[in-house]
């Protein structure tokens, strides 16, 4: 099929491109097949043999810029989707990574799968095969094939994606795509925001009661760069107790959201990584909506821009109380 051929050609181009850069980098971070047809897993590529394992398709969900800050000083090759490239831009803006230390293999991407959405539609614990076409996701299950409409099981961020093509890259692999998504109106938050504060808090209490404090959300976040001086781990000052109470769990999520205000590019890795399926991206979207309305700012889009909370104006256009205080 034509789609298959295009995919194979793109994978071949990626592998060749990675091999051509191997002499110039310590290693390349890319994707390989995971333990079943719906899971890809990140790999480090150091040799041509490793490069032969590289894939790129709708199962390549992880954002490989996570942990990039910790690799400062090394020269790293990196396979990025459009959305992932926004994390790179944000890290560059904050001077947390050096552009000269990165070799970016940009992958125009028309969407990745949200396994949580697939799981509510069918049992994939024994999936034997998966094929993604323009319109469908065709699964091979033990009791036969199952076809799902592709749009139903794409990640939310893909449905509103305006940056299918990487914003920064050194090697653009395959054809650029035409952006389909419209301006983000954050309409999905409207229903939630209509609830009373008590109702919202009750919602979060229910959700957070599942949290096991594994900190996958934090560790999967490309912009969580405090490492083990994180407030969640600090004993002095002792912000959080070791008790697994709702209060500790919730305080961490609030801090996480606040620390990411104006920085979060909504890659969604926090929510995707949560083993308990807690919808924590909602908190970050809420912060971003506020940032958008106040400062008309979107994180990780312009490498030259200064994030609004990294600077200040004596007179902010939309913050009026300052004049009154004076």
């Amino acid at each position: 099929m034509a789609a298959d051929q295009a995919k194979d050609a793109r994978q071949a181009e990626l592998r060749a491109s990675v091999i051509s850069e191997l002499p110039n980098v310590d290693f390349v971070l890319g994707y390989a097949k995971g333990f079943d047809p719906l899971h890809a897993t990140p790999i480090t590529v150091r040799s041509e043999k490793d490069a032969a394992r590289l894939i790129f398709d709708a199962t390549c969900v992880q954002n490989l810029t996570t942990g990039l800050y910790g690799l400062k000083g090394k020269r790293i090759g990196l396979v990025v989707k459009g959305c992932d490239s926004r994390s790179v831009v944000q890290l560059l803006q904050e001077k947390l990574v050096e552009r000269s230390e990165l070799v970016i293999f940009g992958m125009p991407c028309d969407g990745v799968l949200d396994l949580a959405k697939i799981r509510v539609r069918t049992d994939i614990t024994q999936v034997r095969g998966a094929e993604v076409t323009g319109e469908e996701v065709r699964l091979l299950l033990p009791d036969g094939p199952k076809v799902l409409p592709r749009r139903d099981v794409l990640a939310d961020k893909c449905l509103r994606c305006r940056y299918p093509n990487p914003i920064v890259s050194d090697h653009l692999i395959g054809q650029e795509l035409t952006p389909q998504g419209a301006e983000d109106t954050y309409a999905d938050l409207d229903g939630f925001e209509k609830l009373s504060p008590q109702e919202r808090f009750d919602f979060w209490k229910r959700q957070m009661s599942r949290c096991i404090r594994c900190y996958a959300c934090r560790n999967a976040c490309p912009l969580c760069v405090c490492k083990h001086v994180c407030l969640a781990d600090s004993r002095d000052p002792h912000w959080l107790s070791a008790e697994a109470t709702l209060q500790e769990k919730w305080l961490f999520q609030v801090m996480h959201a606040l620390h990411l205000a104006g920085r979060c590019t909504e890659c969604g890795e926090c929510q995707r990584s949560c083993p308990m399926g807690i919808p924590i991206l909602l908190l970050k979207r809420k912060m971003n909506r506020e940032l958008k309305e106040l400062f008309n700012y979107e994180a990780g889009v312009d490498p030259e821009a200064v994030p609004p909370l990294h600077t200040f104006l004596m007179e902010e256009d939309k913050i009026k109380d300052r004049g009154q205080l004076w």
Partner: protein
Amino acid sequence: MVARFLATEALADIAAAWARDHRLLAPVREGAAVLYRPWAKDMHPFLGRPPTSSAKEALLPQTENLLTYTYRKDRDDLTRTEVFLAEPLPQEPTLVLGSRPCDARGRKLLDRVFLERGVKDPLYEARRKATLFVTVACERLENTCFCHWTGGGPMSEEGSDVLLFAVSGGFAAKAITEAGEQLLAPLPEVGPQVQEELAAKLASPVEPGPAPDLSKAPERFLKLFGDMDFWMDQSARCLSCGVCTYLCPTCSCFNITDENSGMKGKRLRTWDTCMSALYTLEGSGHNPRVSRAHRLRNRVGHKFCYHPQEFPAATAQPEFSCTGCGRCIKSCPVSVDIRSIVLDILEKGDKS
């Protein structure tokens, strides 16, 4: 012994009856997860798939109070302070409903750590003695399941007090221990039709397929112990989060901290995770397990080398501190697969 019949519609009633004498933990659906929760009225136990978290929390809670303390200053001599200690309350009898054979086998492996190292952990021991497992036998192996690699099986009885087999209309319940028999006493015996169905099930259990020979895993792991390139490559994708260790039915590492609040406080025991950068971080700031590579090596080594070395098995197949439940694979955000790490150890440890 004839099995008892537990009709689907009688499940909530018998659970409620058990909950009168026990702290009953039953799996329920919450969002996308299936979690063990303390019994509550109108609860709907969900036995349809293995819970997201393991049943470990029944024996080793995520946090437990080791003691509470209160300081009191002597008003006449302020250099003198008295400290009063209070021990935690005794353990309630607990019943875990809807565990899986891999969960139940975890009991034995936790016992090794907390009861069989010369010193018994009194809190664990009390809880262990007071905890029963009503386990659901597995009908199928998920892509992440590998219980048969580590000595278990989808119908393994090990560690369970009752084993439930899905049959038409409900479950055939088989008592494994005397305590299990008492739990099942209120239930009717199975009729001839269900008896036949059960016999057929036991005669042709789900076939897990071939398992690799892991008997050389401990020695080959040691051969690769110093090969940091190997461990760097295995761990490059690891996020250092606690998903694998917290969901694991056998991971037993814990931390102890004092949580002060003014003149009083509690001493807590909390799950620890060797994936964390804080694990084994010493007071000096030095950490012998300084990188993700060192820490992932510790997790794999603990399960497939140090445990079998410390607790040698009587059989040719070593006892691993892994029950093959696959939770660490299934819930890992970056799909780290401990099976493939062990297979790589077997292959590469042979060459080096």
